[in-house]
């Protein structure tokens, strides 16, 4: 018997979503910020996909309801947020110290720590380890960090077969599809489609389309892989500096399989994943589970330290990834971006994400956190439309377990984008840029402002119909009038009314 209820996230961190129509699209979604379309254009196909929008909204509603219930139950929720935020800030303000401590302790426990300056470094380090191990296949626990560095295609090209082990990822990998949602990446694929994929790729002719049977088919399919492939790659939810331990948080159990059965384990983690001490997990684990999936605790947490003789992988590597993070660390307002624990609460709360899903962000990291993280990882050379992909409503800040003031960072990044772009010739005649420069001049003197109001009334008067409303405007105004009317400018401004009233009084 099945219950229609959203289950916990299959793994933290999780693969970002891409929207996708029910039929495979002619052009596939691109999660590469150097190639993806700007946000306003990227949303268009999604907005026209009712099925996907409905699925996203439904998924979000279920998680939000669960989260709300548990947050209300947790009477010390705000204190936990303060503590979580403090712990992450402390880790960041002494990041060098903690990373060195982590390295020392992990190494002492038999692990090997590698440092990767950028994505290419990380990919090369991992492939080199695999070559040394003579590994022709790897099993993977889903990790956003590996997607960030585009690891899978690189390994495949290097002759290593990559097997994802999260259920949604298998559905997508075997069906050659793309994830469409961060929490339930394959929610756009219905059961008969899954049946068709599994029957074909797993050779199971008599498979039914009951989700229980399909899950069992995946369980069996993966069983042999877990038992036979001796090399695994994971991410890390947290790195504990005090002990040199790695923490992985999950729901399906594939994580435990990957980090227990193989001979060699490679964990890749952004340098910001550090928490100072073991005890800090008492805060982080409480806020993570509730924020991400609305559970008091997700099914499995695994913590391990280097190598334990006789138990689990006997060769363990950690790859610490910078890839732009040390630069974000340097920014006074920007640094809080790195507090993120990849819970996805922000995107579950985001009214923009609710309409667009994740694909439109054109990045491994979507939603509010993606809007601030992605452009910064790109050193503001790409994804400049993302800081504007927000109405600044603040819902994300309200739910963020580590209190990242996402709107504050969005505003900072917007000013960086404008600073970058305003000198470009093409922006000089951009109506938005031109309009705002002129507006600033007009606001500097009341008489200029008033004159502009009069001119504006005359100008807009040309577009105002008998009913006193404007139904259509050109240029930038057209973006307003494509779905909304605008009431015509009243004959008398407030200040003119006041002046007249003053005059009358005298």
């Amino acid at each position, binding site marked *: 018997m099945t219950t229609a209820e959203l289950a916990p996230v299959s793994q933290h961190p999780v693969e970002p979503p891409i929207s996708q129509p029910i039929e495979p699209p002619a052009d596939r979604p691109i999660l590469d910020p150097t190639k993806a379309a700007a946000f306003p254009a990227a949303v268009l196909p999604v907005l026209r996909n009712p099925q996907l929008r409905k699925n996203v909204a439904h998924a979000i509603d279920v998680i939000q309801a669960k989260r709300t219930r548990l947050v209300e139950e947790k009477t010390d929720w705000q204190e936990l947020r303060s503590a979580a935020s403090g712990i992450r800030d402390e880790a960041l303000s002494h990041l060098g110290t903690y990373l060195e401590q982590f390295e020392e302790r992990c190494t002492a426990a038999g692990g090997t720590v590698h440092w990767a300056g950028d994505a290419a470094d990380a990919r090369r380090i991992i492939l080199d380890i695999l070559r040394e191990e003579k590994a022709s296949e790897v099993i993977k626990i889903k990790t956003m960090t590996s997607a960030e560095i585009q690891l899978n295609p690189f390994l495949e090209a290097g002759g290593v077969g990559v097997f994802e082990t999260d259920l949604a990822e298998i559905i997508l990998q075997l069906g050659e599809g793309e994830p469409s949602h961060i929490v339930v990446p394959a929610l756009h694929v219905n059961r008969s489609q899954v049946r068709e994929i599994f029957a074909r790729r797993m050779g199971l002719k008599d498979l039914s389309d009951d989700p229980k049977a399909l899950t069992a088919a995946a369980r069996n399919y993966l069983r042999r892989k877990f038992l036979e492939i001796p090399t695994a790659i994971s991410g890390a939810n947290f790195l504990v500096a005090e002990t040199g331990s790695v923490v992985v948080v999950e729901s399906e159990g594939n994580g435990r399989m990957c980090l227990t059965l193989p001979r060699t384990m490679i964990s890749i983690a952004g340098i910001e994943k550090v928490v100072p001490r073991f005890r800090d997990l008492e805060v982080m684990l409480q806020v993570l589970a509730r924020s991400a999936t609305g559970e008091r605790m997700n099914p499995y947490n695994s913590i391990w330290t280097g190598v334990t003789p006789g138990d689990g992988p006997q060769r363990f590597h950690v790859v610490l990834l910078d890839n732009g993070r040390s630069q974000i660390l340097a920014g006074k307002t920007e640094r809080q971006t790195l507090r993120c624990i990849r819970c996805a609460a922000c995107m579950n709360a985001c009214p923009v994400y609710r309409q667009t899903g994740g694909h439109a962000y054109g990045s491994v990291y979507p939603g509010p956190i993606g809007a601030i993280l992605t452009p910064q990882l790109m050193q503001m050379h790409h994804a400049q439309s993302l800081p504007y992909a927000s109405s600044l409503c603040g819902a994300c800040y309200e739910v963020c377990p580590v209190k990242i003031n996402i709107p504050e960072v969005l505003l900072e990044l917007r000013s960086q984008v404008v600073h970058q772009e305003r000198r470009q010739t093409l922006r000089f005649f951009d109506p938005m840029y031109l309009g705002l420069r002129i507006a600033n001049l007009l606001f500097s003197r009341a008489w200029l402002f008033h004159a502009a109001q009069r001119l504006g009334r005359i100008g807009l008067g040309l577009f105002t119909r008998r009913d006193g409303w404007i139904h259509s405007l050109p240029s930038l105004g057209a973006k307003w009038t494509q779905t909304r009317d605008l*009431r015509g400018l009243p004959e008398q401004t407030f200040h003119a009314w006041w002046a007249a009233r003053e005059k009358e009084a005298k």
Partner: protein
Amino acid sequence: MRASLFITCYNDTLYPETGRAVVTLLERLGVEVDFSPRQTCCGQMHANTGFRGEAFSQAKRLVQMYQDTETVVIPSSSCVAMIRDQYPGLFEELGNEGLRRQFAALLPRVLELSEFLIDRLKVEDVGAYFPHRVTYHASCHGLRALHLGDRPYRLLNKVRGLDFVPLANLDRCCGFGGTFSVKNAEVSSAMMAVKLQDILQTGAEFCTALDNSCLMHLGGAMHRQYLGMKTIHMAEILAGAGPGATSNESMTQAEAVQ
């Protein structure tokens, strides 16, 4: 009690009736209202779009203008939020200690309209009459930046003849977001459509709020779609003393632009 009205650039231009209503309301409550004709804009539009440098000069102007004012009342949550949340950072960055101190002294004297009524005047019943079914839309700035809480409800509760219907999904953004409404017009419209569904469900004749910005967006769509519903700033409800007093729609009929 004296209060200076900061009408805001967009209300001055697009919704003067809101300003007139604020004056009517405050004078009825015995407040002496003044208005500085030099005022223009608080700088929010520029700051929020990334034109930080431009916002500096506007912030300076505003602060200098209200040096000696007892209280500044603003019928717009987002402008108050700009002053409370962003001005501190701006003045810090400007590095002018004198200005920063001037601003710090002014800050506690800047109030949003419902804050002024409830916290300063300590009044809930403002003697209003508005015999219509009304729902209240909580703007994001009012909700999350100013934490207006139950102030709007306490005021609406005391309006004679008003039939209040609560709005579902109250904390969900309507999609206006300032320049977001044109930079990401399609998403803005999608969010607006969802919001309108909730508003229509209430069966209200009027959707009110403490921000004309949201109402311009929602009301514009209502008008486009012949939805048979109107938007109205809460100041106009509170100022209303007679049947069918003011509304955006009837304003237009009474003072047609053409």
